[in-house]
């Protein structure tokens, strides 16, 4: 299935290589740099690589959302918290509190990834039913299909996400609120 041939068009291969480099270099940066600010910037690199992969697979809307929501909101939230707390002190990476933790983690991750790749290479997953919900558009871009699916088939899940976001915002405000015991005593 993964047989290399020269039948693939050059632009698609170039786009894949670009997104793969962005994703892998950024991801390795996130787990290896000491400064949390640099890790957040490496995370942006990975997210942009994933957006490139989305565009290459004609998921234009998701690529835009990926940039706006992830790179524009979530990473900025990370940076805000890092700056706000002043935790740009460096972590001692080479100190292992549990002996052999790193080796065990490496072995477990290698087994997991090897299992996933073996599963992909040996199974016949494309023999399942295709186009169960809605077909993709024949051209580029699936914004119309995605909107129709979200607002009809997945309407209940969509409404549930609204409730989820409200609950998350209220919970975050409650968690991060500074308690003022003096004012409570005065009011009591």
């Amino acid at each position: 299935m993964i047989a290399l041939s020269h039948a693939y068009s050059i632009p698609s291969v170039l786009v894949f290589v670009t997104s793969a480099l962005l994703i892998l270099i950024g991801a390795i940066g996130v787990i290896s740099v000491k400064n949390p600010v640099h890790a957040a910037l490496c995370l942006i690199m990975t997210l942009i690589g994933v957006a490139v992969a989305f565009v290459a697979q004609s998921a234009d809307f998701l690529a835009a959302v990926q940039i706006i929501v992830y790179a524009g909101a979530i990473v900025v939230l990370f940076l805000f918290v890092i700056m706000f707390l002043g935790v740009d002190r460096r972590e001692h990476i080479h100190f292992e509190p549990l002996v052999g933790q790193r080796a065990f983690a490496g072995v477990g991750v290698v087994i997991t990834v090897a299992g996933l790749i073996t599963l992909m290479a040996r199974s016949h997953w494309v023999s399942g039913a295709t186009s169960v919900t809605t077909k993709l558009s024949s051209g580029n871009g699936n914004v119309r299909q995605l909107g129709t699916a979200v607002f009809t088939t997945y309407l209940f899940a969509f409404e549930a996400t609204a409730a989820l976001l409200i609950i998350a915002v209220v919970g975050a405000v409650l968690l991060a609120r500074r308690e003022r015991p003096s004012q409570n005593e005065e009011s009591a």
Partner: protein
Amino acid sequence: MNVPAAWYLILAAGLFGIGAFGLLTRRSALIMFMCIELMLNAVNLTFVTFSRTLNDISGQAIVFFVMVVAAAEVTVGLGIVVAVFRRRSSTSVDELSEMKG
């Protein structure tokens, strides 16, 4: 002809592995959250790839919901990090050991 879907799936598996390794080895709660984001993005990439392979929009719709859940998770998680930092002046998860038996 476009590159086969298997290339993107292997890339997503690698990204998931890197995120999992970081989550298991780093001890700063902020970096652990970033590694969770890496793993979520790997799964999103898999969903979009299967959406293209199976010619079905459901994969992309699910990615949309995963992004919403990720945003909510980061909001609450960073709220917890701020609350913990107020009490201990550190974000290292090794110091949160009160519930050790």
